[in-house]
């Protein structure tokens, strides 16, 4: 246990373990650190801010911030006082709590040219990229060196095994435009709480796909409204790279709830 807090911090980040770092940035004990990691659902606390009660209160708050994926500043007394009345006659300890959640995931179904371009753009945005196709000769690491993982499998087992790891920050992009692959991929994605589901294809393909989905019982408007299909913003691009930008731009706009029009044509705060 001789490894430094920094060493443990980087180990947690590199192993994709959720971890938060609390640092005193002003007041008594400036520079002191507390590290809170969540390993198998249990909080692991390392370091000290200089007082047991302060450690107790800050580790509790840090665990809460980590759970919510939030980063921000909190104020305490040197002995962990946290209510405004308790803080009146004490120096203030300002603590910066920074949460590091594992990278969001992007699952791309279909090992096509668009997949390679989308994988590259997704990596720029910090996604952990998984490419999935049932055809062994196409789904190779050599064709998709940017992918963190290339899976030779059908969509259904993939979602059964790992669909529960997908959440609101994650994305599923279905680029196969082959109904026998598309339909189970859409069904699988709809069974998760993934934040973005995009499905590639012309409007004609889209209409046919909706029919196929109806045949297998996917008809509810709430479910169908989760599908971004045809996939991407209308940027007018054609190449795989331009399409990848249109898809990722749509993912960002969906997450922020912004309109994706030019700022020139809107007003109000830009960073809100």
């Amino acid at each position, binding site marked *: 246990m001789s490894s*430094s*807090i*920094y060493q443990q911090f*980087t180990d947690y*980040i*590199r192993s994709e373990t959720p971890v938060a770092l609390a*640092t005193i*940035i*002003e007041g008594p004990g*400036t*520079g002191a*650190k507390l590290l809170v990691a969540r390993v198998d659902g249990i909080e692991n606390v390392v370091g000290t801010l200089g007082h047991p009660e302060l450690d107790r209160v800050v580790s509790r708050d840090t665990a809460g911030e980590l759970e919510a994926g939030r*980063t*921000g*500043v909190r104020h305490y007394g040197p002995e962990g006082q946290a209510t405004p009345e308790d803080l009146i006659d004490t120096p203030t300890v300002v603590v*910066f709590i*920074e*949460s*590091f959640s594992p*990278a969001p995931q992007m699952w791309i179904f279909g090992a096509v040219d668009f997949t390679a371009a989308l994988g590259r753009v997704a990596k720029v945005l*910090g996604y952990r990229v998984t490419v999935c196709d049932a055809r062994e000769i196409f789904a190779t690491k050599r064709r998709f060196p940017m992918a963190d993982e290339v899976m030779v499998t059908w969509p259904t087992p993939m979602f059964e095994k790992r669909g529960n790891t997908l959440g609101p920050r994650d994305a599923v992009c279905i680029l196969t435009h082959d109904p026998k692959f598309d339909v189970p991929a859409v069904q699988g994605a709809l069974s998760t709480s993934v934040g973005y589901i995009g499905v590639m294809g012309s409007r004609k393909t889209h209409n046919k796909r909706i029919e196929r989905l109806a045949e297998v019982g996917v008809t509810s408007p709430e479910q169908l409204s989760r599908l971004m299909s045809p996939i991407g913003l209308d940027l007018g691009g054609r190449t795989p790279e331009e399409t990848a930008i249109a898809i990722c731009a749509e993912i960002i706009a969906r997450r922020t709830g912004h309109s994706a029009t030019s700022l020139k044509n809107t007003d109000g*705060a*830009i*960073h809100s």
Partner: protein
Amino acid sequence: MREILDDIDRWRSDGKKVAVARVVKIEGSGPRDPGAAMAVNEDGEVAGSVSGGCVEGAVVSEALAIIGENSPGRMVTFGYSDDEAFAVGLTCGGIIRLYIEQLDW
């Protein structure tokens, strides 16, 4: 900070001293959120960024001063409320508060 760890580890394995600046608070409009981080080694090499390029130069000077004086970590604020002496601001008009410290923990 995730994206600058490889650079930091490389510098540290070369025996270089390193300081890290982290955005802890943004008031008004700001280009990077809290948590944005930048590392500076004793030779003035830089990894990462904390704004859209508006304050990075000043952050490097502060980081080098902290390494040179072997001082404890401190808060640094840039924005329209600056002293004239600093004369560094965000072009977007916000205030950015950074915590800069040596990586000695």
